[in-house]
C-alpha cells in the first residue's frame, strides 16, 4: 500500500515533515515496513485542505496531531 504525503510549500508549512516522521515511526512500531511505502509529492493542487495525504486514491486532510488517529483508523483499518 502506498501513502503519499504532499511536501509542497503550503503543506510543508502546515507540518508535512512531522507527519512523515510520525508515520515512519508508527509503521516501524507495527512492523509494517513491508506492507506500506511512504512517498512524497509536490503540490497536489488542494492546498486549502493541507496537509494533503492520499491513500488508495482517497485524499485525506491531516494535521500533525491527528496522524495517529488516521493511522489507527484508516491505515490499520484498511489493511485488515
Amino acid at each position: 500500500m502506498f501513502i503519499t504525503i504532499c511536501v509542497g510549500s503550503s503543506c510543508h508549512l502546515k507540518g508535512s515533515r512531522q507527519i512523515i516522521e510520525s508515520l515512519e515511526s508508527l509503521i516501524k512500531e507495527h512492523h509494517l515496513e513491508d506492507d506500506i511505502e511512504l512517498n512524497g509529492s509536490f503540490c497536489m493542487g488542494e492546498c486549502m485542505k493541507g496537509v494533503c495525504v492520499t491513500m488508495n486514491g482517497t485524499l485525506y486532510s491531516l494535521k500533525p496531531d491527528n496522524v495517529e488517529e488516521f493511522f489507527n483508523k484508516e491505515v490499520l483499518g484498511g489493511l485488515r
Partner: protein
Amino acid sequence: MKVSVDVCYKSLNKYQEELCGDKVEILKTEDSDIIILADGMGSGVKANILATLTSKILGTMLLGGATIDECVETIVKTLPVCQVRKVAYSTFSILQIFKNKKAYLVEFDNPSCVFIRDGKIVKIPFVERLIENKVIKEYHFDVLLNDCFVLMSDGVIHAGVGKVLNFGWTWDSMAEYTLKSTKSTLSASRLASMLSKACDDLYMQIPGDDTTIAVARVIPVKEVHLFTGPPVNKDSDEKLVSQFMKGSAKKIVCGGTSANIIARVLDKEIRTSLIYTDPSLPPMAKIEGIDLVTEGVLTLSRTLSLLKTYLSNDIDYTFFQKLDLENGASKIAKVLIEECTNITLYVGKAMNEAHQNPNLPFDLSIRMNLVEQLKDTLKKMGKEVETFYF
C-alpha cells in the same frame, strides 16, 4: 567558445581601522570586464578617500572612453595633497578583459599581477612608460580559457613581515601559493577567500596594513535556465516548457506546480524525495532531464539570502560550508554562484489562492517580489540576466 570572466575580491582592514584604504571597482562594458584595484597612501579615512577617488575616476573615465594617459593626468591633478607627506598618492592596477579575448593590464606601483596559465606562473612582457612623471607598466596580451589573474595591494606581499616572516610573504611565495590554490578551487570567490585567509593567518589576525586580493578567472560562458511559478494562462505551459528546455543550459525548476507542469508536458515522472536534508526546507525531487527540482518560495527565499550574504563581501570559509550543503536552496545558490555566467528566468505569474493564507507562518505570496530581488542580486554579482514572464 565564448568566454566570460569570474571576478571576486576580498579586503582585510588594517588592524583597528574601520575603513579600508584599498578599493576595488568591478565594471562591465558591452564588450569587456574591468577590474580596478587602488591602494591609497596611509590608512583609515585618508587612504580610503584617495583609493575611492582613484578607482572611481579610473572607472568612470575608462567607461567614457578616455585613454590611460588622460586618466592618470586627471588623478594627479585631482587627488587631495596629504598635509603630512605633501604628496597626493594612490597606487592602482587595472585589468580589462575583452569578450574577443584581448586583454590590457596597467599597473602603477602595485605589486605585479600574478598570472597563472596551464598550471604555471607566467610572466607577461610589459612596456614601461612615463605619464605625468609616474612610471606606468602596460601589458597587452590575449587570454585563454582558464587563465587566472590575481591583483593585490602591497599588504598581501608584506603579510607577516617582522613577525611570522622576516620579509613578509613576498611576491614569489604568494604566487606559488596562488598556483597551488588555483588547482584546488574552481571559482574566483573561493580563491579570493583562500588567499585572503592566508594573509590573515600570516598577520596572525592583526593585519599591519590594508590587504586586498582581487581575482579574475577566464571561464567558459555557462548558461542556466530557471523556471518558477505556473503561467497565468494554462495554454502557455507548452510554450514555456519548450523554451525552457532549449539548448544545453543547466535547468532548474523551483516550485511544486512548476515541476508538475514540466513533468506533464515532457511526459516524465516526478520522484519526490522524503529526505529532509534541512528540516525547514521541503525535500527535493527528480525529473529526468532537469538538473535540479525543488520547492518554490521557501527554497528561493533561502537561496536569495545566501546570494545576498555572498555579495556582502563578508564571507569566509563557513559560507562555503553552507553552500556545499545538500539542501535545495544551497544547491541552487551554488550553481548560481559557481556554475553560471548567464541566467534566463522563466517566471509564471499565476497566484496560488492557498498561498494568500494569513494563518501560515510564512508569507508564500511573495514570488514576484523574490524574483525581482533575485534578478537584482544576480546582476550585482556580475551575471547576465534575462527574464521572460508568462
